């Protein structure tokens, strides 16, 4: 008599997939700065401005538009937000990180196209890749700023940093892609503080008086 093979329990496979997927996602954490009274639920469409290169060491070639701007738009879209690449001009060399973190209201109101309200600027602070003994590593730091054109203020700011690296022959061969991997990882962590747009965290129009708290769950409490 041949022993009957036990069918593989699909639930086990699903569980494994879920565990792996959970390991790859970035859990929500509070941002470095969020304007008091502001809720990300009010944000319907995010216009992403041309990225700002805040690096001192610019020796690593980075396609800022592709690796920062488009990648940010993709991450936010995956989170359920409507994103648009704003055709606003680059902030220019005269602008510094301080100007982005403590912006002038008039400057914010001039950002982007008319009709766009929530403006995001992603800034590359540092990126480096290096061949170390027995492998290669990459580090990256990015900062993003979300502005409200309506009142010309910064409403959200956060920072993402990533440290990637791989030992062995494969790691040594991957040296050239370490900076890109580090930027991707840093962006993933950066936007971890923006909650996913889900049924529990839907878009809610901003109430006329922003001083009144929402009746629904706030982003922080809903997660």
């Amino acid at each position: 008599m041949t022993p009957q093979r036990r069918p593989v329990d699909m639930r086990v496979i699903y569980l494994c997939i879920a565990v792996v997927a959970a390991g790859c996602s970035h859990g929500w954490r509070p941002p470095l700065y969020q304007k008091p009274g502001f809720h990300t639920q009010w944000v319907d469409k995010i216009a992403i401005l041309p990225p700002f290169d805040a690096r001192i060491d610019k020796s690593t070639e980075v396609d800022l538009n592709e690796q920062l701007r488009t990648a940010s738009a993709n991450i936010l879209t995956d989170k359920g937000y409507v994103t648009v690449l704003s055709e606003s001009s680059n902030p220019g060399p005269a602008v510094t990180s301080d100007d982005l973190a403590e912006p002038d209201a008039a400057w914010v109101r001039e950002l982007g196209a008319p009709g766009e309200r929530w403006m995001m600027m992603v800034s590359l602070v540092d990126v480096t890749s290096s061949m170390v003994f027995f492998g290669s590593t990459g580090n990256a730091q990015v900062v993003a700023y979300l502005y409200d054109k309506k009142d010309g203020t910064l409403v959200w700011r956060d920072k993402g940093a990533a440290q990637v690296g791989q030992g062995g022959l494969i790691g040594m061969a991957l040296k050239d892609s370490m900076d890109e991997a580090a930027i991707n990882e840093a962006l993933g962590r950066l936007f971890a503080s923006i909650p996913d747009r889900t049924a529990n965290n839907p878009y809610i129009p901003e109430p006329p008086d922003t001083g009144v708290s929402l009746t629904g769950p706030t982003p922080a409490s809903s997660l």
Partner: protein
Amino acid sequence: MARGRSRRLPNTCLPAPARQRSEPACSRIHGALGALTVPFLYRCLTAARFACCIPRGLAQGMRQDFCASVIRRAALAAFVSCGAACSVHPIVPPTARPLAATPSESLTLILLRPVVRIDKMPPADAPLSFAPNQSVPPASDGEPLIRSLYDAAKGAAAALQPALIDCQTAEDGDAGLCKQLDPLVGRLAHGSTTADGRSVLHHVAEVQPNCAVLATQLDVELGPGAYYNSATGQMGSAMSTSAFRAALTRCDTAEVLWKNEVLLRAVPDLDSAGYTESLHALFEGPKVSR
């Protein structure tokens, strides 16, 4: 992944907060690939193994294992002790020029007290316990750094041979000017000013005509240290950085006469060569580069 097998670099350059390890979850899976390649690489070191394992004998197999272990440990020790983190040099933009080359005829130079700003990179997997200013050393810890920045700025300013208002020792009216300018140091060191800042500068120019302010700032970002996980092959270089910035700004027009910035990929350590080189490069230009 065996977290316990992760080796951290005993990098004395890094203070305790910077040694905190944050492991990217995706890299753990990605690192599994490395687990296959690292033993393979060890096996490739046949010459070293051969050198270790002669003469042949009954216990050759055991000796080979021993040698492989020695080689592995030596490789790890080499990475651990000589990691890139300890051989850091300042990075200076190629456009930087020395402060002494700035035209400064009949300028009165106001030397502001430098600012040291210490920040911590957000951890990867610390959802709700994260506090941005956690583990930041108290302000008093930055005092030796401030003093060293100040001495370097004063030395560089002396080369301009201007009339000098030293905010560290200023009294009476000059002390009042310094007090007005102190909150602007961060912005001025970046070579930028706000409308409010420009009005303060304009006011200072009325009291002290033909003046310029020299502002210096050190931005320290504390990040995770270097690490190597022998189980997965996953590794990372230290993330902490120190950004030195200085700028000379005219009071009456808020025009930036000179500015420079230097990046050191390490925590500032007064005794390290990298720190001394950074300060030198900040005021003297790109004599030192990677």
